[in-house]
């Protein structure tokens, strides 16, 4: 009989997922990346698909994702994550393939790849971390930056007249017939994390249907880029990011598969 693991007389009811490595994360304190990484790997653990999962990370803060997610991980050229994932999925259709991209990667330099990957209905999961700035290079304006938001390259706040409007690319790709499941989630509080986990679980399971692309936007924070404490950044995100990027499902499979 296998006994449950016991530590100092306490039963373990919550622990780091086995598929998340022990490597200390390089992400800044309060950043949402760590939580999203964990949620992804918890689902991989629960579905027992570690050996069947392949991730593609891009250029950006998640260049080191392979250090933390103990599945096959590729870092693609900037913006090309879904294109590399397409190649992998086409030759390994029985694997679970996901990309993990920031807003600069997915919604700026990779916009073309994003649109065409979803339009083809590639059977992959696209995880899109939207924090409204380029984090890795030091907080420059991204397509998703809010109007009026100050960044190093919009020092007086983003103006629509010169820099356009925040790009709601998730809404854009929802319109494409290749999109199977599109949802927008967050990780700023425990309930949100649980909802994200449900979404990730669904998205992985939907890959088995081979009916189209799953797309999960995670509205996240960037305490360093926003020049805020983690708590301030979560509050600011709720007050400013969520009205522009409201949480919830944008498309669920029942609408598509009728």
């Amino acid at each position, binding site marked *: 009989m296998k006994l449950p693991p016991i530590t100092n007389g306490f039963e373990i009811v919550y622990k780091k997922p086995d598929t998340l490595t022990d490597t200390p994360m390089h992400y800044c304190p309060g950043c949402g990346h760590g939580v999203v990484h964990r949620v992804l790997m918890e689902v991989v653990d629960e579905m027992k698909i570690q050996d069947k999962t392949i991730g593609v990370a891009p250029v950006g803060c998640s260049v080191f994702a392979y250090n933390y997610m103990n599945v096959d991980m590729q870092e693609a050229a900037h913006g090309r994550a879904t294109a590399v994932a397409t190649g992998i999925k086409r030759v390994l259709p029985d694997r679970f393939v996901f990309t993990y991209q920031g807003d600069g990667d997915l919604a700026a*330099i990779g916009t073309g790849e994003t649109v065409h990957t979803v339009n083809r209905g590639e059977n992959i999961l696209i995880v899109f971390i939207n924090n409204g700035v380029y984090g890795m290079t030091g907080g*420059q304006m991204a397509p998703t930056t809010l109007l009026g938001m100050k960044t*190093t390259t919009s020092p007086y706040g983003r103006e629509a007249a010169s820099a356009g409007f925040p790009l709601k690319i998730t809404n854009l790709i929802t319109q494409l017939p290749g999109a199977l499941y599109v949802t927008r989630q967050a990780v700023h509080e425990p309930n949100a994390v649980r909802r994200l986990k449900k979404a990730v679980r669904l998205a992985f399971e939907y890959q088995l249907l081979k009916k189209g692309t799953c797309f999960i936007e995670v509205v996240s924070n960037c305490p360093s880029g926003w020049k805020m404490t983690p708590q301030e950044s979560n509050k600011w995100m709720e007050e400013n990011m969520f009205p522009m990027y409201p949480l919830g499902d944008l498309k669920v499979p029942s609408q598509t598969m009728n």
Partner: protein
Amino acid sequence: MSFSSSVVQLRSGNQMMAEGAIQAGCKFFAGYPITPATGIFKTMIDLLPANAGVALSAPDEISAIAYCIGASMRGFKTMTATSGPGWSLMIESVQYALMTETPLVVALVQRLGPSTGGATQGGQGDVLLAEFCTSGGYTLPVLCPTNAKECFELTILAFTWSEILRMPVILLSDKETGMTVESIDYSTLSNATSQNRPSNFAFRDYGEFQKEQRKGTYYIDALQEIPTFAPVGGDRKVTATGSAHDKQGKLQKNSPETIDMLIHLEEKLRWRHDDFSLVNMDLQESAKTLVISYGITSRAAKDAVGAARNVGHAVSSLVIQSLFPIPVKKLAQALDGIERVVVVEENMHGLYRSVLERYCNGQRVQGVNKIGAMITPKEILNAILG
């Protein structure tokens, strides 16, 4: 333009490139974040609007350079800045600018490659990627500063070269030169601005200009001539294409005139070759060894040359700022009486050395090379004395 009342300021090479661009009359900049070139982008965003210019954030490097080409076709002096991965994306449009004879300055702040490489690790590995990025191997001017002050001066020069040659000019910096903060004494900086492209703006007699321009957007009498620039959105039709074209700017396959125009793209620079060379020569008459360096490694080379002379070893130094076109005459002058050439560069197997070798007749050429770290004066000294 005023930066501060104080004369001496701390500035990075990237900042000085941006300030140089503004003094040169640059009125349009587009960029995309990439370490270690972001400082130029950021500084232009900060300074250009206040200097009656336009600074734009692009969704990627392909767009950034294309924005610049569009603005330059109207007559604006334009610039973009990137590093290796972004340069790779820009190459198609660099060729388009060459083909359409559109002036443009591109700052390429090198980092360790290939691919994403090392974003925060310097290198000098893009020398040949910068120069030989065109189908056909056209000569593109490549200027390479060694410090923050030269970043300022060479940027102004890059604008002049790109304007009068009507072609893209590359400012080849590197992470150390671009991001190291140094003291800049503004009182020692030149007040010069850059020259303007030969254009109808400059024509005294507009009627005469129109008469000439009726002959075509790229009308020239001899292959080495620079066609007079006419802006898009002006009062006469302008036709430009990245396809092979005749003097009218119209797509042609391989008519004799079209082939002439392709030869002209190289000939206009080749004919003026000697006007476009810039080096720092520090020659010793009795020296049998010549150290050739460029960019950040020339600063270590300078130390090494000084140390060698201190121990009584005669040695000459040639720091090349205009990497391309290769300053052949000045190189020949420096090679006079030399038996051994040491080429110092922070890349794996001597990229610039590989193109210099054919100009070294009879001299033994050796390299001091390294990747992943700066070359030290000691390593160069060992090569000089060895």
